[in-house]
């Protein structure tokens, strides 16, 4: 497993790939993917979530669900760096015939569990997966001692955890709260959500468009266990994930406070960057900043 410092470097490379992908595509979302690069790196490289490209079909693999699928460039770049698909594929983002569709789907064998786009659909599916994990081997089967056919054990006897990545603007959708209610009712400890609390959505800041605060209290009132972390602090994110997985009760929400556009100075905290890609010129400035870590080191390209 990579060290925290190594993971930070991976996150930086993922950010660079996000910029390159967006420029090649000529459309797509910038701020969200950059802001979530650290959290995605923690999920896929941190060793807490049980994910492995060599075991992408294993019935007991942890399920990772991206609910706000418009930030899929960060998912694609992370999966590529983790070995689910060749990094060279990333430049096909949003192109005809590419597995890297404008919003992520489960049609291609690249480790993506669900299809998303219309917001809130991922969290409901994640709740369903967590319930399937809970159901495990049917008690009925166990009682009657009927052998389970090997080919049909996808949801059986499972010991997997489901991790759902969500946006904060997404929480405007009533369906999210329907899902939170059901998970709370079932005390669904098999489920953890990581909420990207970056405070922006398309029309402005979340608190202008539709106030979410006090988000922690709201979730707790729905019988969720809530942890707040700095979404750019790898160690904090991983500690929270470990705590969530170890808990014996409650679904867990990890509210990840992030900076939208993180790592690219002129994009940080600007809601205007929610839904557009950089121009080639802006991209070269962004890439230079990422390569030099904001001027802290000299770029190897200079």
């Amino acid at each position, binding site marked *: 497993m990579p060290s925290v410092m190594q993971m930070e470097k991976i996150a930086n490379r993922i950010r660079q790939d996000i910029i390159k992908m967006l420029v090649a595509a000529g459309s797509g979302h910038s701020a969200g993917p950059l802001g979530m690069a650290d959290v995605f790196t923690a999920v896929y490289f941190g060793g807490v979530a049980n994910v492995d490209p060599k075991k992408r079909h294993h*019935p007991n693999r942890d*399920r990772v*669900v991206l609910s706000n699928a418009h930030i899929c460039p960060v998912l694609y770049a992370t999966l590529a760096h983790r070995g689910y698909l060749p990094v060279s594929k990333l430049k096909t983002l949003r192109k005809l015939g590419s597995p890297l569709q404008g919003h992520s*789907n*489960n*049609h291609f064998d690249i480790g993506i*569990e*669900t*299809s*998303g*786009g*219309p917001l*809130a*659909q991922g*969290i*409901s*599916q*994640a*709740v*369903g*997966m*967590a*319930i*399937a*994990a809970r*159901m495990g081997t*049917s*008690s*009925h*089967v166990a009682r009657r001692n*009927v052998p*389970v056919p090997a080919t*049909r*054990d*996808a*949801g*059986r006897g*499972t010991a997997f955890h489901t991790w759902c990545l969500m946006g904060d603007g997404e929480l405007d959708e*009533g*369906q999210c709260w*329907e*899902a939170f*209610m*059901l998970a709370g*009712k079932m005390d669904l400890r098999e489920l953890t959500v990581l909420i990207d609390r970056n405070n922006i959505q398309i029309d402005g800041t979340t608190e202008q468009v539709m106030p979410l605060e006090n988000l922690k209290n709201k979730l707790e009132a729905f019988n969720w266990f809530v942890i707040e972390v700095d979404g750019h602090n790898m160690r904090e994110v991983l500690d929270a994930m470990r705590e969530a997985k170890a808990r014996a009760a409650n679904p867990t929400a990890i509210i990840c406070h992030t900076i939208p556009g993180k790592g690219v100075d002129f994009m940080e905290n600007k809601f205007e960057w929610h839904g557009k890609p950089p121009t080639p010129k802006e991209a070269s400035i962004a890439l230079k900043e990422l390569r030099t870590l904001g001027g802290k080191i000299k770029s190897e390209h200079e």
Partner: protein
Amino acid sequence: MKPLTLSPYWMYPTVEKKPTRDGYGQALLELGENNPDVVVLTADLAESTRALPFGQKYPDRFVECGVAEQNMMGVAAGLALAGKIPFVSSYAVFSPGRNWDQLRVSVCYSKANVKIAGAHTGVSVGPDGATHQALEDLAITRALPGLIVVAPCDAEETRKCALAAAAHQGPVYFRFAREKTPVMTVKETPFELGKAYVCREGYDVTLVACGPLLHAALMAAEKLAARGIEAEVVNCHTLKPLDTKTLFASFKKTRCAVTVEEHQTTGGLFGAVAEACGRGFPIPLESVGMPDSFGESGDPDQLLAKFGMTQNHVVKSALNAIKRK
């Protein structure tokens, strides 16, 4: 082709009557016993969708979602993607009416193996009125790629449909009704998803029916026979994929047809047959169904008469179709 077995009592007033939803409840119990992957979800409508007995017998495989149909459809998709065979049980006006987007993306686009049971369809829902009478569910489901759409004709066929849906890999929508309707088919009547069948042979006009109104079509055929007109009656329970082979074989003989359904005449059975005929076998077509209108409160029989979905309406439409040949 030999007509298939119907109950010998189908045309008598003494024929057994049962709500089609009872067949669903029966099938769920059979599936609970035989298939440990089957799970059932409902949104606060366990009793009236007949999901309740399953929930009582197999509480570990039953998810009560509360009045939250959108979440229910997504949860079902998640269960299916993790290997389960979920049955989503609610009223059709809510599911797939209210959660169509979730059906489209979480289920159909994701190719999740979810079965959607839509209860309380047609004006014959009765006193609850227009808001609870699903008359557009076939149109909105038929438009979705990869979804099988079925309207079984009676409780026995609904039972077989639910069993066949569980055995099929992929999403299936099927609808049923609230009121008691004649049980025309018997245990031996074959049922296959996507396969229409001829219930009565004839050569003057084809009556293509789905759902409990198949009974009106069969009665209309008897009335037409009294006038010397021989109608062929096809039970076209599956609207998608449409069995054009069986339909066109009948149309080749009769050269005109009437569709009979308890649904808007836009996008349902009439829509499906008209599309197929337009592409492959143009003939005069008449429709018996909801005439671009919302329903209202009343007794089921009153409503079917008011909106033109009785055996007499089928007779009239058949005569019109023959005239247009």
